[in-house]
């Protein structure tokens, strides 16, 4: 009984009750607002009938309750927290009548049924805490994630320069509208209340206020690396859904129902680490062999048949059906996510640049060499051992047999030809660029490293350019291959590739090779000669 009555009263009670009810202080009651308060009173009534019993009802955290309290303390937040707020401004509910007529058609007996529905809308502002905050994450209404599609709302960080909300100012007059400087608050415009039983819902907000002082990690972090590098639609800022026999499932809406994962990730990043200026976007293709002379570098997919809307997977003009399929584990799950679709990479670059972030493009090679492979191991005498290590590091791609093993091709012309095979013959003109899509018009069997890197150079240019571009990362096994006493063919191949990338991206883009730490101090062959070659230095 009390549950019903008090539940309907809802948030209106707030913490503003004076005195004491049933011996319980107002402050305590203030903490039990909402539908649960009734059940608490119920349990008090029952427990007063049987005084020896002690029943404790549902207990709520006062911080998560929206109220409208005069003189309430403005909370101070450190880090990230879910919190309620204090309603500091609200309009009267706006009533809209919607009349529908049914029946009364031909042959039907009886009169028409006219139904009048009353819909209510409210505009209000909720103060959250002391500012400045850096962002708002999720929002809950009556404890459930709030559907914000079609809702007009905005937030103010609570800094010392924020200006008055134009909507409130238009209603109240500019003179009588404060900017609430120093207070973080949220404004909802004409929120439809029918979903919430025609009352203001209990709102709680995930609020970010990082300790971004100059001596904290949040304040010091200026650049981050965006992974996972794989995942067919992970980087897309456009909702992508897969359709499978009549059912539709979102591919990239996991964090929030109405915002793509990429957008949510960037929102959270900027809310948590406001000093970040630069992001390295990692995008992976798949290598399939540690022997440079045999390794193909290809874009991969998780499954070879999947219908997606509005866009299909495509990388470098290769469609899903003709793309490399990543290998499976013992439960038939793909061991890697697929290569991000080209359109997703373009969207990610554009989204980050629109947010004022600098973008470094970072092409990556994941090695899809499964555990039960029968490939000759280059790290064995005469490469006679069967089976390469499972899922190795790309930095182990080398000549075969590798330097230091019997029969090694180290310091021979064969080593140079193995390097040439890995890089392939792609040229800047082997691609056709149309709008924001880049496809391959070279030899179909060419799966060299150059094809991958030049593809992304074209794609980055088509996306509007990037600030920096890497032509390779952590390839010490490759860069230390020698075709002569001190000749490094892979280093030369990277230099040539850099020049070609420069011709596509222009002089305004920083272009480089991201060396592994073991390459920083040059190549020390370990053959007893005591030689040190600074092989990456001109």
């Amino acid at each position, binding site marked *: 009984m009390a549950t019903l009555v008090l539940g309907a009263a809802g948030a209106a009670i707030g913490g503003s009750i004076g005195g004491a009810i049933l011996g319980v202080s107002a402050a305590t009651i203030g903490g039990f607002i909402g539908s649960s308060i009734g059940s608490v009173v119920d349990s008090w009534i029952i427990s007063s009938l049987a005084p020896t019993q002690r029943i404790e009802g549902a207990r709520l955290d006062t911080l998560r309750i929206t109220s409208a309290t005069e003189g309430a303390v403005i909370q101070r937040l450190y880090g990230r927290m879910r919190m309620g707020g204090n309603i500091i401004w609200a309009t009267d509910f706006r009533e809209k009548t919607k009349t529908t007529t049914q029946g009364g058609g031909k042959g039907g007996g009886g009169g028409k049924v006219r139904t009048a529905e009353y819909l209510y809308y409210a505009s209000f502002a909720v103060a959250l805490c002391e500012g400045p905050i850096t962002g708002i994450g999720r929002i809950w209404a009556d404890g459930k994630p709030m559907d914000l599609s079609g809702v007009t709302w*905005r937030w103010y960080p609570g800094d010392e320069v924020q200006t008055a909300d*134009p*909507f409130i*100012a*238009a209603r109240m007059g500019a003179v009588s509208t404060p900017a609430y400087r120093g207070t973080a608050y949220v404004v909802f415009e*004409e929120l439809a209340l029918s979903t919430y039983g025609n009352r203001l819902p209990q709102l709680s907000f995930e609020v970010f206020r990082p300790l971004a002082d100059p001596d904290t990690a949040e304040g010091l972090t200026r650049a981050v690396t965006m992974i996972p590098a794989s995942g067919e639609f992970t980087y897309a*800022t*456009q909702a992508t859904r897969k359709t499978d026999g009549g059912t539709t499932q979102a591919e990239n809406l996991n964090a929030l129902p109405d915002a793509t994962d990429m957008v949510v990730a960037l929102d959270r990043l900027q809310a948590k680490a406001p000093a970040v200026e630069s992001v390295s976007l990692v995008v992976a293709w798949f290598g399939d062999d540690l022997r440079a002379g045999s390794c193909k570098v290809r874009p991969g997919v998780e499954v070879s048949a999947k219908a997606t809307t509005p866009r299909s997977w495509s990388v470098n003009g290769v469609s899903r059906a003709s793309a490399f399929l990543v290998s499976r584990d013992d439960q038939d799950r793909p061991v890697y996510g697929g290569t991000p679709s080209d359109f997703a990479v373009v969207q990610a670059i554009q989204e980050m640049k629109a947010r004022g972030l600098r973008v470094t493009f970072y092409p990556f090679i994941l090695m899809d060499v499964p555990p039960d492979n029968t490939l000759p191991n280059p790290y064995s005498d005469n490469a006679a051992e069967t089976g390469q290590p499972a899922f190795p590091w790309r930095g182990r791609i080398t000549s075969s047999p590798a330097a230091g093993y019997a029969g090694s091709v180290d310091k021979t012309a064969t080593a140079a030809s193995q390097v040439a095979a890995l890089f392939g013959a792609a040229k800047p003109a082997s691609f056709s660029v149309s709008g924001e899509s880049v496809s391959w018009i070279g030899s179909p069997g060419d799966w060299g490293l150059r094809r991958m890197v030049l593809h992304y150079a074209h794609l980055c240019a088509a996306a509007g350019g990037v600030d920096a571009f890497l032509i390779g990362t952590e390839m010490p096994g490759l860069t230390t291959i020698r075709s002569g006493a001190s000749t490094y063919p892979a280093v030369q191949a990277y230099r040539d590739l850099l020049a070609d990338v420069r011709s596509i991206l222009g002089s305004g883009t920083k272009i480089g090779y991201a060396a592994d730490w073991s390459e920083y101090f040059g190549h020390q062959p370990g053959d007893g000669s005591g030689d040190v070659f600074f092989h990456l230095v001109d």
Partner: protein
Amino acid sequence: MTSADPTRVIAIARAWLGTPYHDQASLRGVGCDCLGLARGVWREVVGPEPFPIPPYSRDWGETGPREVLAEGARRMMIEVSPAEAGPGALVLFRMKPRAIAKHVGILTGPGSFLHAYERLGVIEEPLTNAWRRRIAFAFLFPQR
């Protein structure tokens, strides 16, 4: 085409302040929507409208890929880049990502603009970052 004097455009636009919001209307002091405001300012700054505006619904153009409003404006006005648009420019806002730009306003200063806003009528308000970020196109009124 030379562009109209921005001071004059702003003065004419400000005369519309307080006009109630009404879908499809374009009558100063009586009612207008955001496009109606732009049309009204056009009539006073440039002259008669070159073609009749077809009837439109609230959700017109939301599903199509064509920038109908921008294309129409481009035929009659001087396009400038949104970054260069100054006071007196007509700006088109893209209210939702990947939807067409269909809200219209007129810049009245470096940090303010004037537009017809549903439920509030014609108001002048600060061009906050939230608004600025949504500007997709900008045009100047031509000289009569």
